[in-house]
């Protein structure tokens, strides 16, 4: 190549890099920016709605009532029920899935052919649409012909109503959640376990350290970042659970399973109370936002480790 091709750029001894080169990253990320705006605009709108009296069926009453939607919640038993149910649901599912997922990951820890096959098979529930999974369990728990109803009847429990009985509804949806999402924890922890360095374990084995000590003092601490990330993932999704509960019972029986998003959905579409629905979701967002800030920090640390750079 001859320098004549560069003649257009040779007049000044120094110049700024070409503007096109500078703009390139912005041009490339423009579409992603548009999607961001498409998220942020409705989000701000929701925040504004939450400060308004806004009912779709009574448009004339619309106006700012500021914090009133929120203040009303304080004395509203339905809100406290929603908060309580959401927290119980979240706590139950996350704890059960974490214990079960950790246990299964430990069982499958050695990378044998059989263990790998099992871990792949366990992905299937996770890849089933949660709404469809709820339907599967609905068929299996049908009081008339459901296989699970039949099985419990073998143990002398007749007339077990599963999701349609207020006393067992929570148990049933938690069971479905555990069925779908335990593999999520399992697969992350399994990847974590298998990535741990070997030396500490070999040293402990040589020294004859008891297995329980190895587990609590070596395995768990080294696995902690994976456990924290996986649990936070689940925590954030679980507190917003909608698909399973809506597909299974639509929040019922009664208000037994009225978690945040189901309640907000019904406020919006059944009672057309946009303001109240938005306020409910803002509270949920506040909770998840605090959690996700913790989450992102942990997640970034893991990511750096995975990709080997800052």
């Amino acid at each position, binding site marked *: 190549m001859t320098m004549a091709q560069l003649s257009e750029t040779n007049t000044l*001894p120094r110049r700024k890099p070409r503007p096109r080169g500078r703009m390139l990253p912005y041009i490339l990320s423009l579409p992603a920016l548009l999607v961001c705006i498409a998220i942020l605009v409705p989000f701000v709108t929701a925040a504004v709605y939450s400060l308004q009296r806004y009912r779709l069926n009574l448009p004339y009453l619309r106006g700012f009532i500021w914090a009133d939607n929120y203040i009303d919640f304080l004395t509203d038993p339905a809100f406290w029920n929603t908060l309580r149910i959401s927290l119980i649901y979240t706590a139950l599912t996350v704890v059960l899935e974490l214990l079960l997922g950790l246990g299964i990951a430990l069982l499958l820890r050695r990378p044998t052919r059989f263990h790998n096959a099992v871990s792949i098979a366990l992905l299937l529930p996770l890849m089933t649409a949660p709404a469809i999974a709820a339907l599967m369990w609905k068929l299996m728990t049908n009081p008339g012909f459901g296989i699970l109803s039949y099985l419990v009847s073998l143990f002398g429990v007749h007339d077990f109503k599963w999701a349609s009985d207020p006393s067992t509804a929570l148990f049933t949806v938690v069971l479905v959640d555990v069925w779908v999402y335990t593999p999520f924890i399992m697969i992350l922890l399994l990847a974590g376990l298998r990535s741990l360095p070997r030396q500490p374990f070999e040293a402990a084995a040589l020294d004859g350290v008891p297995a329980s000590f190895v587990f609590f003092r070596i395995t768990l601490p080294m696995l902690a970042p994976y456990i924290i990330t996986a649990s936070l993932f689940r925590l954030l999704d679980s507190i917003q659970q909608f698909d399973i509960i809506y597909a299974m019972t639509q929040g019922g029986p009664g208000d037994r399973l009225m978690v945040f998003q189901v309640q907000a959905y019904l406020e919006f579409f059944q009672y057309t109370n946009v303001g109240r629905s938005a306020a409910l979701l803002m509270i949920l967002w506040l909770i998840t936002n605090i959690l996700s800030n913790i989450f992102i920090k942990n997640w970034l640390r893991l990511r750096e480790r995975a990709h080997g750079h800052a």
Partner: protein
Amino acid sequence: MARLDINAVGKSFGPVRCADGLSFAVEPGEIVAVFGPSGSGKTMLLRMIAGMYEPDEGDILVGGQSIVGAPPERRGVGMAFQNFALFPHMTARNNIASGLRARAGNEDVASRVKSISKLLKIEHVLGHMPRELSNGQKQRTALARALIGNPDVLLLDDPLRNVDAKLRYEMRLELPSLLRRSSAAVLYVTQDYREAMAIADRIAVLVGGRLVQLARPEEVYARPASVAVARLFGDPSINLAEVEPQVGQGGLSADVAGTRVRLDSGDRTGAQGPCWLGVRPDDLVVTRNAGDDAIPARVVAITPMHERAVLLLRFADGSEWLAALAPDAPVASADDDVFVRFAPESALLFDRATGLRVGQPDRRQAA
């Protein structure tokens, strides 16, 4: 055929100054080794020439035309990377040809790939993917890719870093003629002073982003511009002692470990006050006989190194020097008491405050 001019180039990353007023030129067909410790700004200089970074100040010209701000593909610069940077999804042949396809038409791609790979002895692996190549073959492929486009400027970023010792030795012999064939202005970054001396016409020594010396290899070795350069060149590295030379009868002399030693009898008017005395291990003579200018020492240890015997010597004041002796020299054994001397003209003196070499250039040639 174009000259590479680097004009007062400066570059900072935050508080770190990785290029500071760099100025020098490389003639077409000339090989200049850029030598310096890691972090001295060698690679950054190459990357500014290649267009991956732009200098904050100064200008870079190829054939008299500024290339600052031009995109990398239009600079007429070829580069071989330390980590080879081969395209992992292309065969060696396509890796080499990638340079030509963009510049030239398809007309003689095949024949040029063939001739360059013959030159570099990689004809038999042209159909291989990079992962199937040995490190040496990767290195040659990367060189072929950089050479094939006949760039005006050729940048080699420590190309022998990741190849084994035998191959490095061979390439040191082959590279100069190979590079001169291209008539490009070549900048060759290395951290190995032997490599720099074997390959380059001139050596540019960079320390902390500054050019501290630019001279022919033997000159850098014999007359290092500063104590820093002296320490970078030579293995085992140069022996240093704090001295305060005085001009007396018989010329310049100084106390070294309690012994009065004659330094060069030439004009050393600048060499007064606190100095570093530097003597290369190769220039030391170890004898069992006392005498003028002979410093008593004890042999602490002996170890072979680069086909020489290296003696670790301890003087009476506790300071330690190294002496490198030819293997056939009568070698003392550990714990022997010996005497050390060196020719006055092999002594280098550096100002202790500035680190710069003081005194007139002497007559010595590189060993």
